[in-house]
C-alpha cells in the first residue's frame, strides 16, 4: 500500500502556495469533457460539487437523503473556527494550526493541518459573500465566541444553527449549479460500491432507494464525502441515516482505512430514557460554564429526588478530581468521569439495561448566585429543549447528562491532495482521516468540511484530472466488465439479504451491535474488552447473516433493506475498529486504553511507538486486516503532554 503523503516541499507556510503553483490545470474549454462523481452533499461533498461545477466540470452528486440540504452537517450547533483575528486577541493561522495539532493529541499531519488553518479565513469570506447570516455586533462587524481548547475567540456562529446555515450556503451554491445543469443531483441514491478499472477509481454503483434500481455511473474521478461512522454505536448524536457504507465499500475495494479507533464522545448529551430510544441529543457544552456535575455518594440515593439529597451526600466529581479545571475539564476526561461513577452504580435517572446512566448537571447554585433570569437568558433554549425531551424542568430539578458518541476522527486514508491510496478516489470531510488526529476541537468539523470541499478539492482534483489527456477524459464505459462485476456483487448481496427471511429485525441487530460497541469499545477500552468485543461482533454478524428479516422486495422503497445493508457494513467495520483499538496500545485523544493511564486516570500516550497513522488494508471479511503505518513527522511542533489538573 503506497502511503506517500505527498506533502509539498518548503516551509510550512509555503507548502500550500507551492502546491497550488505546481498543480496541473485543465483548460476551461476542456473541463466539460471531464466528469466527477461526488458521494455525499454535506459541507465537503456539496461544497466540492458546487465548486467543481462552477469550474466547468461535469459533476454528478449523490445523496441518500431526499434533498442535498439535509446532509448531517446541518446539525452542528456551535460554530466554525477561523483564524481571522477579528477580536484582536492574538490569533493567527499558526495558532489555529498549533491548537488543532495539540487538541488532536499529536496524531495528525502538520502539512494538512496548516493548510486547514490557512484556508479557514477564506471560508468565512466565502460564506458571508454567499449570504450566510452570521451573528453580528451592533457596529455591523462579525461576532465571535470562544470555544474549548483555545485561548482566543475565533468561532463564528449563526445562533445555535451554524451547521445549518453553512450547509444551506453550500446547498444554495450547489442548487445554482444544478439549475445551470453543471451538476446533476441524484437524491435518494445510496452508493453501494466503487468501481475500479485497472486499479483506478472510475465510477460507482448505486441503488435508487425509491424503486430499487441498481445503476452504474462512470466518471474520471470519484469523491467520497459520506461523513463519519458514529452510528456504529447505534445510539449517537448522528442522524439516523448516517452510515459507514460508502467508506466501507471503498475500503473493501482496497482503500486504506486510517485510525478507525479515534472516535469522539461528547459529554453533555441527554441520557437515554429507555430501550425505545433511537438517538441521543447533544446540548451545548457551554452548559458546563454554570452547571455543576455531581452524582450521589451513596448508591441508595440514586433513585431519590435529587433535591432531597443533602449537600454532604453529593459527589461533585469533576471538582473533586480536577480542582483547577473543575466542571470545565475537556470532553474526553469529563465523559470518562461520568461513566466511571455510573459503572460504580452511582448513576442517576431511569434504569436502562440494568443500569442508571446519567449524572446531574446542577444549576441550583448558579441560579442562586446569578438569578433565574440570567440563566434563562444564557441557556433558555437548551433548558426548553431538555424539557421537551425529558419532561423535566431543569430550573427546578438538576439536569441529567451522559456522554454520547458524536464524531469520528478516523476515516479513509488520504494524502495531502485528499486522494486515497486508490488512484482517482478522493475522500473529504468527516469521511477522511486527515486533520483532527485523535481528537477534534469544537467548531473545527465545519471548518474542515468546507475547507476540503471549497478550497482543497477544487485544486487537487484539477491537478489529478489535468494529468488525464483530454482525449481520454470521459471515456470510461459503464459496459466495462469491472462495472458488471461490481453491479453483480451488489445485486447478489442484496438478494442474499432479502432471502434470509429470519426472525431478527435489522434494527434489533443494530441495537445489539451498539451495545457491544458502547460497553466494550466506547469511552474506555482494554485488551480484554476489545478481544471480547471482536468475538461478540463475529457472533452477531453470523446471526445477522442467518437470521435477519427484511420484509418486502428489493425493487421498491424498502426502509428495512436500506437499514440492513448499513448494519451489515457496520458489523464488518466494527471489527476493524476493535482491531485498531487493540493494536493502538496507548491512550490518546478519543482513544482511551485503561492499561495506559496515570494514577489519576490521565491518558498516557506512547509517542515512541504510536506517533503515526495506522492504516488498515482489507484482507477479507472475518480475516485480520493488514496494518500499514504512515509515520508522522513533527518539524514545527514539539510533542507535549496534555494536562488539565
Amino acid at each position, binding site marked *: 500500500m503506497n502511503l506517500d503523503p505527498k506533502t509539498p516541499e518548503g516551509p510550512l507556510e509555503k507548502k500550500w502556495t507551492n502546491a497550488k503553483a505546481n498543480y496541473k490545470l485543465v483548460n476551461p474549454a476542456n473541463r466539460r469533457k471531464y466528469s466527477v462523481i461526488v458521494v455525499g452533499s454535506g459541507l465537503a461533498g456539496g*461544497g466540492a460539487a458546487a*465548486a467543481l461545477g462552477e469550474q466547468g466540470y461535469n459533476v454528478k452528486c449523490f445523496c441518500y*437523503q*431526499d*434533498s442535498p*440540504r*439535509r446532509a*448531517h452537517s*446541518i*446539525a452542528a450547533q456551535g460554530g466554525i473556527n477561523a483564524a*481571522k483575528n*477579528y477580536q484582536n486577541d492574538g490569533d493567527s493561522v499558526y495558532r489555529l494550526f498549533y491548537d488543532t495539532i495539540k487538541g488532536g493529541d499529536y496524531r495528525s499531519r502538520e502539512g494538512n493541518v496548516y493548510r486547514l488553518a490557512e484556508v479557514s479565513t477564506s471560508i468565512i*469570506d*466565502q*460564506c*458571508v*459573500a454567499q*449570504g*450566510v*447570516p*452570521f451573528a*453580528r455586533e*451592533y457596529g*455591523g462587524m*462579525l461576532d465571535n465566541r470562544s470555544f474549548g481548547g483555545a485561548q482566543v475567540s475565533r468561532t463564528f456562529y*449563526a*445562533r445555535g444553527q451554524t451547521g*445549518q*446555515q453553512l450547509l444551506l450556503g453550500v446547498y*444554495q*451554491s450547489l*442548487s*445554482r449549479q444544478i439549475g445551470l445543469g453543471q451538476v446533476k*443531483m441524484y437524491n435518494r441514491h445510496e452508493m453501494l460500491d466503487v468501481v475500479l478499472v485497472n486499479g483506478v477509481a472510475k465510477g460507482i454503483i448505486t441503488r435508487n432507494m425509491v424503486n430499487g434500481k441498481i445503476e452504474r455511473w462512470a466518471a474520471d474521478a470519484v469523491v467520497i464525502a459520506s461523513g463519519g461512522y458514529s452510528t456504529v454505536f447505534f445510539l449517537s*448524536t448522528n*442522524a439516523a*441515516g448516517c452510515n459507514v457504507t460508502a467508506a466501507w465499500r471503498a475500503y473493501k475495494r482496497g482503500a486504506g482505512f486510517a485510525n478507525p479507533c479515534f472516535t469522539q464522545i461528547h459529554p453533555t448529551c441527554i441520557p437515554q*430514557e*429507555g430501550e*425505545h430510544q*433511537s*438517538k441521543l*441529543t*447533544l446540548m451545548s457544552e457551554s452548559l458546563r460554564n454554570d452547571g455543576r456535575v455531581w452524582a450521589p455518594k451513596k448508591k441508595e440515593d440514586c433513585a431519590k429526588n435529587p433535591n432531597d439529597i443533602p449537600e454532604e451526600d453529593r459527589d461533585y466529581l469533576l471538582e473533586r478530581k480536577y480542582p483547577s479545571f473543575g466542571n470545565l475539564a475537556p470532553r474526553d476526561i469529563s465523559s470518562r468521569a461520568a461513566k466511571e461513577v455510573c459503572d460504580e452504580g452511582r448513576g442517576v*435517572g*431511569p434504569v436502562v439495561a440494568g443500569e442508571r446512566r446519567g449524572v446531574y448537571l446542577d444549576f441550583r447554585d448558579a441560579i442562586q448566585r446569578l438569578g433565574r433570569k440570567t440563566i434563562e437568558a444564557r441557556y433558555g433554549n437548551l433548558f426548553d429543549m431538555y424539557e*421537551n425531551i*425529558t*419532561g*423535566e424542568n431543569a430550573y427546578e430539578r438538576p439536569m441529567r447528562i451522559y456522554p454520547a458518541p458524536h464524531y469520528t476522527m478516523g476515516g479513509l486514508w488520504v494524502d495531502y491532495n485528499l486522494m486515497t491510496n486508490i488512484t482517482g478516489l478522493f475522500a473529504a470531510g468527516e469521511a477522511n482521516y486527515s486533520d483532527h488526529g485523535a481528537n477534534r476541537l469544537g467548531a473545527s468539523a465545519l471548518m474542515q468540511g468546507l475547507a476540503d470541499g*471549497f478550497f482543497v478539492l*477544487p485544486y487537487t482534483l484539477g491537478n489529478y484530472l489535468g494529468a488525464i489527456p483530454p482525449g481520454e477524459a470521459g471515456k470510461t464505459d459503464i459496459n466495462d466488465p469491472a462495472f458488471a462485476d461490481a453491479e453483480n456483487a451488489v445485486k447478489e448481496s442484496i438478494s442474499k439479504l432479502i432471502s434470509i427471511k429470519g426472525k431478527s*429485525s435489522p*434494527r434489533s441487530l443494530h441495537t445489539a451491535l451498539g451495545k457491544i460497541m458502547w460497553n466494550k469499545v466506547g469511552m474506555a477500552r482494554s485488551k480484554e474488552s476489545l478481544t471480547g468485543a471482536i468475538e461478540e461482533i463475529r457472533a452477531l454478524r453470523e446471526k445477522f447473516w442467518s437470521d435477519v428479516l427484511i*420484509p*418486502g422486495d428489493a425493487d*421498491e*422503497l424498502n*426502509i*428495512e433493506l436500506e437499514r440492513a445493508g448499513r448494519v451489515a457494513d457496520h458489523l464488518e467495520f466494527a471489527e476493524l475498529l476493535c482491531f485498531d483499538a487493540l493494536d493502538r496500545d496507548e491512550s490518546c485523544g478519543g482513544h482511551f486504553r485503561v492499561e495506559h493511564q496515570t494514577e489519576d486516570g490521565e491518558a498516557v500516550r506512547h509517542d515512541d511507538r504510536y506517533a503515526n497513522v495506522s492504516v488498515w488494508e482489507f484482507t477479507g471479511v472475518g480475516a485480520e486486516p493488514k496494518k500499514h503505518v504512515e509515520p508522522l513527522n513533527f518539524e514545527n511542533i514539539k510533542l507535549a503532554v496534555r494536562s488539565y489538573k
Partner: protein
Amino acid sequence: MSEKSLNLNLRVWRQKTADAPGEFVTYKLDNVSPDSSFLEMLDLLNEQLIETGEEPVAFDHDCREGICGTCSLTINGIPHGKGRMITTCQLHMRKFEDGETITVEPFRAQPFPVMRDLVVDREPLDKIIQAGGYIEQRVGSAQDANTLPISKEIADKAMDAAACIGCGACVAACPNASAMLFTGAKMSQLNLLPQGQPERYKRAINMVESMDDNGFGNCTNIGECEAACPKGISLDFIAMMNRDYAVAKVKRFFSGAA
C-alpha cells in the same frame, strides 16, 4: 421520566407505491413509553409489524433533533403534530392520552406526491431554490468578510428567515398547498442582505415563477403555514416577497425587458 405507558390505536396511511391507491390501516400498539418521540413510537410499530411478517410503515426521518427537516407526517390533522415550533421528531408521546386513536397521514399536496406510505417527494422545494435561491458568488473570489458591515438588525432578520429547515410543513398545512412561506423566507433572507441586492429582483421573479410552475397553490393569507412552521417563520416574509415581486415586475415593465 414518566412511569405509565400508553396503549394506542394508530390509524396510518398505507400506500405501496406512488400509483397505488392508499388506505388507512389501524394498528394497535401497546406499552409505548411516554418519553419516546413520535418517530420512536413508529419504530416500535415497525418492529411489531416486522415480527408479524408485515411490511413496516415507510416514513422519512434523519437527524431526529429537529434541524434536518426530513421528517414530515400530518398527525391528527396537523403537520408535525400538536405543539408549536416542533418537528415530528421532537414531538413526544407524553402529549398523547392513553387509549387515544392517532391518525397519521402523509403531507398532502399535489407537488408532493406520495412515494410510499408516509414518504412524499419534496423535490419541488429544491427546484425553487435552483431557480434563484442563491447568491452568485464563485468560490474563492470573495472579499474580506468584514469589509461589508451589516447592521445587527438586518443580520438578525435575515437569520429569522434563514431558520427555515425546508420541511414543507407550510405547504402541508395550507389548504391550497401554497409554498409561499418557504419561498418568501428563502427569498427574503437573501433580499434583506446587502450581498443579495444585485440579484434581488431577478431572484424575486424567478423564484415566484418556479413556485407556480411546480404546481403549488395560491396564498390566501390565512396563516396556517406560520402556525405549522417548526421554526416559527413569520408571514412577514411572504409580505416581503409580495412587495419585492411587485417592484420587480414594475421595474421590468418600465425597463422594456420582456
